[in-house]
């Protein structure tokens, strides 16, 4: 039934997003990009793709950060176009996508304030998709309650904030805040997608479960040799995903990488993450330098690509944003490799199509 009515409200936007998706750089483009000698070459190559003349008015020599900034700007413009044309419930789904960026921005600002960085500089570094009006006032707050009461109470993140158990803002607590917020966000978003149901629910739960598992594994690995107790660690794991609940219990007790590996290997899909001899998900042969993060990204790209195989669902909006983000990371990586003369590492990007 949803196929019957989907196009009434969302057909146009799905078409638009599929169009954007076809503009994502493919292997040939990356091959050309990696051959560039200078960033000006890169600019020339990018102008032949869908990025077009986005750098035409930048004086050369251009910096890798400028390319990144402009590419992000283009993505943000595209996303905003989709958001502005969206009807409920798609509009709310798209709003959910921005919450993740809001969390990042909030954390960025409070970390920056903790280290007494200049507010304006921090504001410039915030992701444009996660900006909200009252955001600059974050730097005033000195503890979580104040943070919540002054700024966060009127943002969509407010319910997530209520779940934070710590109060003081310090190095360790910021990580706890970040992870608690993210946990709450993921659970909420997961529930929301389940409520939408249908193909959207199916595809999104697949993606979000992986996202949750990835966070769980990362939290575990990062909490080795820190003050974080095992119980506290377990509290930060999002309560969803393939690893939930047995995996969580085991991971909470793990205290070295080998333990994590032993736990995770029970799940067949996740086995390749820790197996350096296997090929990657995308099919291309992995080089020896692939890190765990890269493997996560590869699997994420793989999942996101799968969403385009089906029609009449919202997951492609999520997938488009994530794939495009990965593409920008790739371009930045290539640009940095070129500008720093590290040509041997240039092929460590994650090919999408």
């Amino acid at each position: 039934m949803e196929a019957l009515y989907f196009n009434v409200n969302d057909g146009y936007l799905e078409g638009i997003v599929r169009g954007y998706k076809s503009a994502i750089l493919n292997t040939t483009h990356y091959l050309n990009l990696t051959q560039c000698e200078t960033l000006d070459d890169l600019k020339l190559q990018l102008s032949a793709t869908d990025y077009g003349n986005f750098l035409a008015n930048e004086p050369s020599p251009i910096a890798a950060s400028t390319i990144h900034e402009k590419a992000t700007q283009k993505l943000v413009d595209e996303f905003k176009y989709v958001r502005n044309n969206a009807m409920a419930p798609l509009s709310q789904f798209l709003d959910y996508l921005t919450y993740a960026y809001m969390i990042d921005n909030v954390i960025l600002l409070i970390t920056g304030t903790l280290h007494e960085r200049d507010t304006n500089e921090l504001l410039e570094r915030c992701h444009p998709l996660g900006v909200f009006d009252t955001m600059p006032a974050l730097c005033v707050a000195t503890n979580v309650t104040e943070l919540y009461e002054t700024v966060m109470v009127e943002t969509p993140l407010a319910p997530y904030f209520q779940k934070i158990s710590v109060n003081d803002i310090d190095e360790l607590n910021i990580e706890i805040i970040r992870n608690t917020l993210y946990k709450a966000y993921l659970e909420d978003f997961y529930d929301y997608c389940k409520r939408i149901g249908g193909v959207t629910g199916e595809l999104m739960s697949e993606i979000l479960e992986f996202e949750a598992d990835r966070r769980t594994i990362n939290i575990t690995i990062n909490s080795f040799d820190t003050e974080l107790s095992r119980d506290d660690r377990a509290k930060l794991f999002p309560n969803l995903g393939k690893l939930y609940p047995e995996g969580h219990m085991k991971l909470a007790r793990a205290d070295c990488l080998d333990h994590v590996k032993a736990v995770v290997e029970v799940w067949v899909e996740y086995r390749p993450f820790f197996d350096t001899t296997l090929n990657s998900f995308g099919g291309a042969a992995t080089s020896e330098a692939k890190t765990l993060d890269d493997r996560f990204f590869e699997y994420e790209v793989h999942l996101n690509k799968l969403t385009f195989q089906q029609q009449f669902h919202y997951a492609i909006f999520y997938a488009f944003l994530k794939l495009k983000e990965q593409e920008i990371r790739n371009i930045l990586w290539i640009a940095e490799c070129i500008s720093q003369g590290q040509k041997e590492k240039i092929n460590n990007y994650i090919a999408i199509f």
Partner: protein
Amino acid sequence: MPYSSLFRSEEMSLIQLYIPQETAQPTVAELGELGLIQFRDLNPDVNAFQRAFVKEIRRFDEMERHLRFFDAQLTKSDIPVRPLTGDIRTIHARSAQEIDDLEEKIIEHERRITQMNDSYETLQKQYLKLTEMRYVLQETRVFFDEATSRQDNIRNSFDEPTAPLLEQQDLEHGSESLVLHHLNLGFVTGVISRAKMQTFERILWRALRGNLYLKYVEIDEPITDPETDEVLEKNVFIIFAHGKELINKITKISESLGATLYPVDSDPNDRDNNLTEITSQIEARNSVLQNTKNVRRTELIKIAEDLNIWMTIIKKEKAIYHTMNLFNYDSGRKCLIAEGWCPSNDFDKINQALRNATEQSGSTVPSILNELRTTKEPPTFIRVNKFTVGFQEIVDAYGVAKYREVNPGLFTIITFPFLFAVMFGDFGHGMLVTAAALYLVIREKKFEKGISDEIFATFFSGRYIILLMGLFSIYTGLIYNDCFSLPLRFFPSGFQWHDNQTDAQQIGVYPIGIDPAWHGSDNFLIFTNSYKMKMSVILGVIQMSFGIVLTVYNYTYFKKRLSIWAEFIPQMLFMQCIFGYLVFTIILKWSINWNERDNNGELVHGTPPGLLNMLIYMFLQPGVVAEEDKLYPGQGFVQFMLICIALICVPWMLLTKPFIMRRDHKKIRSQGYHNPQMDTTRVSTDEDNEHGGAVVAEEMFEVEEFDFGEIMIHQCIHTIEFCLGCISNTASYLRLWALSLAHAQLSSVLWDMTLKPTLGMSGVLGTIAFIIAFTLWFSLTVFILLLMEGLSAFLHALRLHWVEFNNKFYEGTGRKFQPFSFTLILKDGD
């Protein structure tokens, strides 16, 4: 030398140019002005940024960026750029030195402009700060004054519960600053953008738990942000709060929310002094600002003079180097090798251009032009002028002609407006259309310069089509004898009405078109319908037959003799046996006087038979025609023969060609010839794997494998399409009748409903009614009958050409000739 005409596209040659390296740039420039060569890419496997002249192109890109910057600055300061005057051919760089100078000049200008912009911006920022400060001072004075007047209230309210706090102080010393001081009330003043005011207030309220007193006033004058040039509306605010902590917090929040804080003295005298000082400073700044602005303006005006010339030069140079990137470099002979297509007729012009370029650059080594033999299909180039271009575009929209194929564009010039007019036939409407088109044609010099409206530009580019459509409509209008649905009486009618008769008596023949006496008669519609329907079929059969005839020109030109015997002749016979015969009977029926009576008063020829039934029964009962339906003696036999011929034509079309081709193929095979091996592709790989091992294959030969099955299927489809197409296409021409009927009826309804009733009225009321009715009638005529009906007739005429006419002979699988030409490049850029 072959003549260039619209009938076939120009003959093209593949040429090779050897251009000495030192004269390459001027030579290519000369060829670009000429605009007659379409260069081929000789290094398709080289990446865009690895080509020979990327460095130069990048340099021009950079210069273009500077120019765009100038352009943006000019638009910002509202200075018009001087438009190009004179011939753009004369604007080009003469030497490398000139380009270097230009670059230097542009960079110098840019440096100066940027510098001036910077200083202007700093000045403006200071100015902005001062103005904001002034506003803060002015507005806060009001707050403080209010505070003073409330001083007593404040004190009284504090007197009772917190008496000890005030007791120590000298109450007689009652200036408001002291009061503020004594109450430990600190305050923060500043300016914030109005859009953020609400958020700001809310956050402050929450952060301070309501322990504050905030006042704000809107600044009337909008303030321009010097960095982004946005006009912002701002508010002055003042916040009173109690305690150092809170004041600090307020300061922090305000700053993070983008407010600018301006400290204000709590002493009123100091404030007044400040205000006067600031006002005088503002005045001083103002004059400096004005000066900077003027200097900048003069600089920009200087740039505006030359900007378009520079832009043209740089665009041309860029195009030159882009083209040179397509060339091969022969390092042994120090020359560039170019390949491209050009019209064979224009060798002389190209040679002349090459010589000119060599002479001008003072080189002794001439460029060499070589003609290559090739099996590649050349691009299609049809020379058009301003009259024919519109018609050719109608054809090109369907498909660009195959190289040297018969081009329907030539015939479209007449047939298109004619078929349009058959549907649009009305003398008056034709006059209006012609007048409008004539206006466009006569004023074309003026309009050419710049049309911004897209819809108008479409009409303008089709002005000659519209003109011919109008003229033909006048003609068909005369034939239909329709002028705004009324008959024209140029000559005396051929019919006479007797007083007490219901029938008119024929006394003569009206010299041109339909007799005006038909208008308003009871059987007018029956008559015109029959006439227009038959006319549509006749026109359709003629046009389609003509289309089939054109295939012969293609077959003879491309030396396909077999196709004439195996396709053209059976197609023609099939068409003529069925629909040609129909046309014959239509004309025969017209030429018989069915009212002729013999001496007994009996009709000589009987009742007229229906042609539609005749055609149907010709197939249902071959060879039999009922006595009362006979048009001429021996009709049954003739029809039987025609059907037999048409039926024979079907297998003839279907089978002869494939089987003869198979026989020929077998003969060749039996003589020992074979197809060349299949690996006829040249594969070039880059030796060094730096380019990612891009493999590029180029087809060297295009030999088609003989496949009988494929040819048979193709022929089968073709035959079915033709036979069914003949029937459906003939029916399709009936749209001529339908549209013409609709047009005539619509215009007569419009006349009857609006203008006609007012004609009988008299007096003032009648005049007013007439004026109103006339405006209504005229505007509806223009919008509905001319524009909407005209558009619909246009589209139907288009369809008749694209589908019914073109599919008889036109392949339209060519690609258009796109020469390297500065005129085209500059036009595209606009």
